[in-house]
C-alpha cells in the first residue's frame, strides 16, 4: 500500500517534470517574420489582408493569434487563430496570383472586428485598424515585435480578371477589325444556311394559302441577346411579309418585347412601302406564365392554322409543346434557338433548325449588310483561335504544363 502511494507520487512528479519537457520539445517557437497589413487587393473594400512568412516552428498544434485594436495603444482584442498548417497566400490566388512563393507565406483576411473572441457579429472594418501577431503552441506565446496597420479601400481594377480582359480584347478586336474591313470591301462570301433560305419560300407559300405566319420570340426578356437577335430577324421577316402582302402574328411573353416587336414590324412595313398594311393588334401580349403561354399558343396554332411557324429565341420545355402542335396543322416550321437543351426537340419537329450561333448569324445573313457580314468573319477567326487554343492547350497540359489550365481559371 505504501509502495503504491510512493509510486503514484513519483509518477506524478515525473509527469509534472515531463510535460514542460515534452512541450518544450514540441515547440521551439520562432517568432513570425515579415508581418504586414494592407488593403486586400481586387476587392470591394471591406477587408484587410495580413500576411507573414511561415515560421520555422510550423507544425500541428501551433497557432498564430491575430489581435486587433482601433489605435496603436489598444485595447488589443484577439480576433482569430490561424492554424500553422493552414491559411497560406496560395489559398487565395484571386488576391495574390499563382506565384510559387505564396506557399511559404501565411495569409489571413480580416473582414470584421470582434468586440471579444466570442463575438458573433463583428463590426465591418471601415477605418484604419492596428494588428499584432503572436505564435503559440498552446503553452508558450511569442509575440511578433511591432504593430502594423492598414485601412480597407475599394479597388479600381481586379487584377485576377486580367485574363478575361485579354480575351475580351482579342475577340473584340477580331470582330471589330473585320467589321471595319467590310466597310472597305463589302463583297464577302457567306455559306448557305438552308433554314434562312427557306424563309422566303415559306412566306410565299403563306400568301398563296391565305394564312398567317406565326412568329415567337422565346421566353426571355429584352436584355437577353437571344431575344435581341430574334427581334432583329423579325424585322427582316416582317419586311418580306409586307412585300408579299401576307400577315404575321406575334404572340408575346414579355410586354417590353411586345413593344419592341410592334416597333420593329411597323418600321419594316414602312420601309417596304406598306405602312397602311401594318396591324398593331397582330403583335400582342399573352401571359408571363410558361405553360399558360404554351397552352394559348397551341390554341392559336390549332385555330388559325398558320402556314408557317417561326420560333426564334430562347425556349424551355414548352418548345416541344408548341412545335409538335404545329406539326399537326401541317405548317412549315423553322426554329432558331441557343437553348441547347431544346435543340433536339426542334430538330425532330421543325423543317429547319438554326442551331446556336446560326441564330445570331441570321439577321446578318438576311440583311446582307456588309458590316453585319464582317462580324461573321470576325466570329470565324475567333472560332479558329479557340480551336488552336484547345489543341495546343490539351497537348501542353498532357505534357505537364499548367499554363493553359491556369490561364482559363476564373475567380
Amino acid at each position: 500500500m505504501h509502495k503504491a502511494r510512493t509510486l503514484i507520487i513519483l509518477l506524478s512528479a515525473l509527469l509534472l517534470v515531463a510535460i514542460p519537457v515534452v512541450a518544450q520539445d514540441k515547440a521551439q517557437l520562432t517568432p513570425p517574420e515579415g508581418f504586414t497589413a494592407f488593403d486586400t487587393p481586387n476587392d470591394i473594400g471591406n477587408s484587410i489582408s495580413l500576411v507573414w512568412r511561415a515560421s520555422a516552428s510550423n507544425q500541428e498544434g501551433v497557432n498564430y493569434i491575430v489581435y486587433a485594436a482601433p489605435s496603436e495603444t489598444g485595447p488589443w482584442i484577439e480576433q482569430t487563430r490561424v492554424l500553422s498548417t493552414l491559411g497560406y497566400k496560395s489559398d487565395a490566388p484571386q488576391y495574390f496570383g499563382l506565384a510559387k512563393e505564396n506557399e511559404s507565406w501565411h495569409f489571413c483576411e480580416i473582414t470584421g472586428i470582434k468586440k471579444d473572441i466570442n463575438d458573433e457579429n463583428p463590426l465591418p472594418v471601415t477605418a484604419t485598424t492596428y494588428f499584432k501577431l503572436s505564435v503559440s503552441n498552446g503553452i508558450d506565446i511569442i509575440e511578433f515585435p511591432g504593430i502594423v496597420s492598414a485601412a480597407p479601400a475599394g479597388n479600381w481594377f481586379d487584377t485576377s480578371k486580367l485574363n478575361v480582359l485579354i480575351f475580351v480584347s482579342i475577340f473584340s478586336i477580331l470582330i471589330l477589325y473585320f467589321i471595319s474591313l467590310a466597310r472597305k470591301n463589302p463583297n464577302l462570301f457567306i455559306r448557305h444556311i438552308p433554314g434562312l433560305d427557306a424563309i422566303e419560300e415559306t412566306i410565299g407559300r403563306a400568301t398563296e394559302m391565305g394564312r398567317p405566319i406565326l412568329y415567337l420570340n422565346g421566353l426571355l426578356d429584352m436584355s437577353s441577346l437571344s431575344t435581341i437577335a430574334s427581334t432583329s430577324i423579325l424585322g427582316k421577316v416582317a419586311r418580306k411579309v409586307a412585300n408579299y402582302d401576307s400577315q404575321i402574328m406575334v404572340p408575346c411573353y414579355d410586354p417590353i418585347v411586345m413593344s419592341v416587336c410592334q416597333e420593329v414590324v411597323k418600321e419594316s412595313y414602312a420601309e417596304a412601302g406598306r405602312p397602311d398594311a401594318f396591324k398593331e393588334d397582330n403583335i400582342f401580349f399573352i401571359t408571363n406564365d410558361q405553360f399558360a403561354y404554351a397552352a394559348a399558343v397551341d390554341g392559336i396554332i390549332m385555330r388559325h392554322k398558320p402556314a408557317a411557324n417561326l420560333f426564334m429565341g430562347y425556349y424551355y420545355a414548352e418548345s416541344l409543346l408548341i412545335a409538335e402542335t404545329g406539326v399537326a396543322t401541317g405548317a412549315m416550321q423553322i426554329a432558331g434557338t441557343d437553348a441547347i437543351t431544346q435543340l433536339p426537340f426542334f430538330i425532330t419537329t421543325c423543317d429547319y433548325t438554326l442551331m446556336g450561333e446560326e441564330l445570331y448569324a441570321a439577321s446578318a445573313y438576311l440583311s446582307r449588310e456588309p458590316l453585319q457580314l464582317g462580324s461573321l468573319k470576325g466570329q470565324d477567326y475567333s472560332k479558329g483561335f479557340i480551336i488552336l487554343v484547345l489543341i495546343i492547350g490539351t497537348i501542353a497540359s498532357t505534357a505537364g504544363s499548367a499554363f493553359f489550365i491556369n490561364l482559363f481559371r476564373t475567380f
Partner: protein
Amino acid sequence: MDSTIIGGWIAAGLTLFMFSSLYKDNPFYRFGEHLYLGLSVGYVILKVIYANIIGGLYKPLFEDHQYLLIIPTILGLSLYTRFFPKIAWISRITFAFIVGYGSGLTIPRIIAGGIFQQIEKVITPLGKNGAAWWDIFSGIIIVIGVASVLIYFFFSVEHKGIINKISRVGIYFVMIAFGASFGYTVMARMSLLIGRSYDLIEFATPKYYYASIVLLVLIVLILILYETMRKKEEGSENNA
C-alpha cells in the same frame, strides 16, 4: 363535401380538359386554356402589384426615400409614349437602356463563365487516371468533337473539300448528342405523366366519388354529341 373533394373534382376535370386537346381542338380545351390564361394573368398582375410596384417602387421611394428610383419610373412610363405617335421615339431610349445594359453585362461574363469554362473542361491532361488508353481516346474524341462542331459553324468559308468533311464529322457529333439527349429526357417527361396518372387514379376512387371516371365519361359523351352536331351542321350547310 369538404374542400379536398371539391379540389379533387376540379383537378380531375381540368386535367381531362387539357388532355382533350390531344384528340383535337375542342370547347373543353378552349375553356381550360382561357381559364388558365386568365388565372395566370391575374397571378402575374398580383405579383407585379405587390413585388414590383409596392415592394420595388412605392416603399423604397416613399418610405426609404431612394429618389433615384424616379429614373426607372420615367423609363418605364416612357414606354407608354408609344400610344402617342409624335413622341413615340422616347420609348426607344428605354429599349436602348435595357438592350445596352444586357449587352455590356454579357460580354465579360460570357467569356469568364462560358468560353473559359468550356475551354477549361476540354484541355485537361489526357489519360490522367493512370493513363488508361480508353481515357486518352475519350479525351482526343472530345477535342475532335468540339473542334469539328466549331468548324461546322464557320460562315465565311465555303463548306467543301476538307472543311466539308470536318464539318460533317461535327454534324455527326451533334446528331448523336441530340439523339442521346432526347432519349435521356423521355424519362423525365414520362415521370410527369405518371404523376398525373396517379392523381387521376386517386380521383377515381370512391373517396372522391369516382370523379375521374364520371368526368371522363361525361366529357367523351359531350364531345361525341358535339362532333355529330357539328357534322350535321356542316352537312346541312353543304346541302344548302
